[in-house]
């Protein structure tokens, strides 16, 4: 596919995505790309840009908007992650994020099912023939708790006895390959609390957090949370993460105090980040980002 054809396919997808959110009353927002305090996560490294960093996600700004009273917002834009390059990674990529106030991760899953069904249906017939035959009708999605998936495919339950290295290795070597065998989208949900990132612990089971990840063809496509809105716990998580990053010799980013302050007023909310390049890749039936990043 030529560069222009690839960008036309992307353009069709972008129209479809925007139409989806406008129909549902979402406001499209633009937040800064070059920022002083990227979100602190153990394994996500920001690309320095002068005395700032390029964003790894627009998440913290969206939460500030929710605290100001935003109800439904979305953003599509470039994000940057240092050192991530492979057939499913590129250090500069397009992310779609959306948030809903007064909602949780399962409400976001409903949005996601509707969105994926729509883009699948709207994509051209050429692509429909190319991609592996696969139903994405929302009733068919397979939901698996992380505990069940690990018990079944890796022989242990990480909830309550989380081991980061074992978890990551088994996830890529055992669980993800097993998910690739499903011919419907698979959602892994309720991650061990240690892998909560910015999600809320599940009130009925504090060993896990309200986070899900969507897999199509075994490829991770989106990550969603019932957002953590407790500023004290959020600060503690950032500080613990900063300590771990220091030990690993990684850059420690300044804490985003404005974000932490905004959390005091933030309503309960659900949100998700979805990789647009991977989505386009799946729509056209390709198996590497090379097919959708023409100037890579």
């Amino acid at each position, binding site marked *: 596919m030529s560069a222009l054809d690839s960008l036309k396919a992307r353009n069709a997808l972008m129209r479809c995505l925007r139409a989806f959110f406008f129909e549902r009353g979402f406001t499209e927002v633009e937040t800064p790309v070059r920022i002083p305090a990227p979100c602190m*996560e*153990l*394994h*996500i490294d920001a690309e320095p840009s002068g005395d700032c960093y390029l964003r790894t996600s627009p998440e913290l700004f969206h939460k500030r908007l929710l605290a100001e009273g935003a109800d439904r917002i979305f953003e599509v834009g470039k994000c940057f992650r240092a*050192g*991530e*390059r*492979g*057939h*499913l*990674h590129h250090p500069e990529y397009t992310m779609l994020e959306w948030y809903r106030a007064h909602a949780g991760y399962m409400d976001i899953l409903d949005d996601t099912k509707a969105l994926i069904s729509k883009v699948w249906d709207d994509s051209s017939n050429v692509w429909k023939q190319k991609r592996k035959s696969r139903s994405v009708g929302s009733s068919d999605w397979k939901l698996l708790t992380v505990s069940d998936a690990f018990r079944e495919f890796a022989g242990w339950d990480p909830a309550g006895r989380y081991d*980061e*290295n074992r*978890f*990551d*290795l088994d*996830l*890529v*070597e055992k669980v*993800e390959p097993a998910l690739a065998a499903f011919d419907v989208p698979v959602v892994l949900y309720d*991650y061990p609390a240690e*892998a909560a*990132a910015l999600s809320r612990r599940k009130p009925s089971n504090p060993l896990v957090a309200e986070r899900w*990840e969507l897999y199509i063809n075994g490829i*991770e496509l989106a*990550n969603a949370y019932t957002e953590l809105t407790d500023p004290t716990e959020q600060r503690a998580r950032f500080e613990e993460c900063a300590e771990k990053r220091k030990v*690993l010799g990684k850059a420690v980013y300044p804490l985003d105090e404005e974000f932490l302050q905004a959390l005091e007023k933030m309503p309960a909310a659900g949100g998700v980040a979805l990789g647009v390049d991977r989505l386009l890749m799946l729509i056209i039936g390709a198996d590497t980002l090379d097919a959708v990043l023409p100037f890579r």
Partner: protein
Amino acid sequence: MYSASDLKKGLKIEIDGDPCMITGFEFSKPGKGQSLYRCRIKNLITGNTFDKTYRSVEKVKRCALISRDYTFSYIDGHQYVFSDNETFEEVRLDDELLGDLKNFLVDDMQVEILFHNDRALDITLPNFVEMAIAETEPGARGDTTTNVAKPAKLANGYELNVPIFINEDDVIRIDTRTGQYADRVSKG
């Protein structure tokens, strides 16, 4: 030592004392997890292939491979004897290591031998070698098309396909990398 993030296809590394080469490489990063470098690795001694996943904090030993220039001397049973161009020291390679390449050795041929801790791993011949055809069906006179092939044999028994116009005693050039006919040097 290499960092896991230095790993890539074609890189040679040492695992448990054995020289190995990365023949397949995939960057992987699950969800919020750490970067993982999934490698398919070939042991250059045994030829065995296996998969190994490295985490970003892991270090991988460099593989010190040295290649030296040699001159081919003579055949001794199943061994091929070469002498070091600088020290004149002899090295003997088993025919197994040479594989098909043993058919393309000629007297005084200049070769490069790759060593890992004094163990010979691989040999590189000049890209082209000139050899005479020992056996082939006579070609049709005047037919110089190159897209029609017929079998032919060298004096050492090596078989290859040659164009129809090649005859016995013709000298041809063989590409040692592919083992295939390249062109005709002279008529027999």
